[in-house]
């Protein structure tokens, strides 16, 4: 699997700094779970955070702080087991965690033309949802006010510019008017997050125009 569409530096720095809305963090963590390139880039930004910690001027700790923490760890067992979370289905671990399982655990709601969505429980500063788009169907035409991230988990979709397969991330801002169309062959499942309400032009999904040649 070769991922061609990656996280932006801006998103990676925001994630490393702990500044992303929860819904965006979910998309970043899910993409990084699938993409070694972005995992390595993220590690380099974490290292930048480490350099900032090292660089801090000392702020004196309370007098008894060390004793207090020593007393605290006294009865505290050190965990010993590395417990790698490894997802077995199509959802990487961080997403499976939000869904409460893999694909079969998703509570889909139909929005027409076989398109389904499931809103995921995240903070309100941005929203995340899963989208299920039958092969060959376009999701509603919409513009954006904020930023919208769309990560492919199964199948593939195309927008006017490019094609997105599993692991690929489309980053759309207000300048991009896009109509993602699920490619033929396999139904497409995506994780999408936005920090602004979507403005649907046409609420109903529609069949792809022949223009897209899918």
């Amino acid at each position, binding site marked *: 699997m070769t991922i061609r569409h990656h996280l932006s530096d801006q998103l990676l720095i925001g994630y490393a700094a702990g500044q992303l809305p929860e819904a965006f963090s979910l998309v970043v963590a899910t993409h990084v779970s699938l993409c070694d390139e972005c995992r390595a880039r993220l590690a380099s930004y974490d290292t930048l955070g480490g350099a900032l910690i090292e660089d801090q001027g000392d702020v004196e700790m309370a007098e008894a702080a060390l004793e207090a923490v*020593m007393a605290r760890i006294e009865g505290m067992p050190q965990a010993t087991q590395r417990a790698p979370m490894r997802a077995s289905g199509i959802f990487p671990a961080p997403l499976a965690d939000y869904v409460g399982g893999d694909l079969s655990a998703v509570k889909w709601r139909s929005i027409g033309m076989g398109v389904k969505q499931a809103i995921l429980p995240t903070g309100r500063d941005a929203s995340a949802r899963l989208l299920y788009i039958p092969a060959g169907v376009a999701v509603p035409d919409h513009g954006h006010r904020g930023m919208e991230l769309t990560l492919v988990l199964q199948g593939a979709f195309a927008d006017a510019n490019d094609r997105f397969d599993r692991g690929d991330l489309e980053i759309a801002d207000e300048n991009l008017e896009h109509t993602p169309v699920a490619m033929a062959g396999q139904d497409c499942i995506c994780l999408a997050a936005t920090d602004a309400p979507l403005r649907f032009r046409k609420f109903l999904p529609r069949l792809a125009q022949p223009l897209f040649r899918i």
Partner: protein
Amino acid sequence: MVGQAAEPQLRVAGKLRHDKGLRVSNGDETDWAGLMIRVRDHQDRAAFAALFRHFAPRVKGFLMKSGAGATLAEECAQDVMATLWQKAHLFDPARASVATWVFTIARNRRIDALRKARRAEPEELDWGPEPEPDQAEVMETQQETERLGRALAGLPERQRSLIERAFYGELSHSEIAAETGLPLGTIKSRIRLALDKLRHEMM
């Protein structure tokens, strides 16, 4: 302990310094990773105290610059250090410097405390049993943080301040500059190589 002869940069006053001894007093030369490994493998309290004296005040400073009041910052810095002890088994000196690892714990504590938000974490990789990580790689990893610190200090004030403000949480994600002007490529490449190797071994 292997490969020491091939690491001339580790010599301090003609003496190899990456030994197993406790080094707590010589400032920047302290082997924080060595101390952390003593905490991890031997629950060494003296090593933990040395780590605490160095990192706790820095974490507190970091949290106060991130907008926490002194009391909350103190409390969280103590939490961070306790987590350092509790999760010592996750410390892998070939993957991250102690400072980097402390940063990730402090950042997550800050998200809890100040934003009360949840943060999804990437799937953990199973690096497999590595009782004796490659020493050259360990040193490289620990030194990257120092090198990066120097590069950061050498940036023009405006640029450095932008990076600091991003990490202190003063900038929203859309205000963060995409370019840091820092030599992060070598760090990325090293980790990428390690990941490629891991994937190869898993196949």
